[in-house]
């Protein structure tokens, strides 16, 4: 059960990672990108249309992570503690904190992308999107390291 949930969690995270990265680069690089380049094409996505998917994927990923955390706390973390992987546990703690803060930002993020005020400056939504992208990347990398550390790190 835990393995199946972890695989689904990983797949949802991959989709979320792709969507938020596209949107973040599009939000930052609206001007000045050469449209013919790879980066230009990568950034030339309809950013607002990603917002609903990102909210759904972030919420689903956090929910799955919250369920898997029960197994992690009982079966995995004691092993990491016994192996003195304190840095990994510290990074994982930060993943939990960042994920919670990001979850609470989703309503504001959604409003900025899907219900913007007329003539609203884009700085706030760019900042929120960048923060969520940082949180998603941090969670993805930290989760992978915690998942694999007893293999490649031991």
């Amino acid at each position: 059960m835990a393995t199946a949930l972890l695989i689904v969690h990983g797949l949802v995270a991959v989709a979320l990672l792709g969507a938020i990265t596209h949107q973040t680069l599009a939000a930052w690089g609206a001007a000045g990108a050469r449209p013919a380049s790879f980066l230009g094409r990568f950034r030339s996505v309809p950013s607002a249309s990603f917002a609903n998917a990102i909210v759904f994927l972030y919420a689903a990923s956090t929910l799955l992570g919250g369920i898997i955390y029960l197994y992690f706390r009982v079966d995995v973390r004691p092993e990491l503690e016994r192996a003195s992987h304190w840095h990994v546990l510290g990074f994982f703690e930060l993943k939990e904190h960042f994920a919670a803060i990001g979850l609470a930002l989703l309503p504001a993020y959604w409003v900025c992308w899907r219900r913007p005020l007329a003539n609203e400056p884009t700085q706030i939504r760019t900042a929120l999107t960048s923060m969520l992208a940082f949180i998603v990347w941090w969670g993805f990398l930290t989760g992978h390291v915690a998942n694999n550390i007893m293999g490649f790190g031991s």
Partner: protein
Amino acid sequence: MTSSAPFRRFSFAFGTTFAVLYVVALAKDLALITVFPSLGIILAGTHRSRDVADPAMGFLAPAIYWYGWTTTAALGALVVGLVAASIPKGSTRYNWEGMVWIIPALSMIACVYLTLPWFRL
């Protein structure tokens, strides 16, 4: 496309307040619930192991506080968000908008500070 003003105020106040309250809950250990997954029980409030004679008991019944910190912050933020949503437009000069990413960013830095002990072990 226009914004629903009360929901907009709610969402900005909720995100900002949650970030502050989460750090407070983390720093002051204010978990609304404590989960013991190996025992399958949930207790109200923060419960730390007081078994000083045998600290290894913590391995037998590991506790999860993250759900509790999150619940504490979410409930507080919900109250503040609902209050912000109910305030008539123009009755306050305070503006949440810029704070919605500055305060969470500062909260994330505070979380890093509070997590530093892990890196000194």
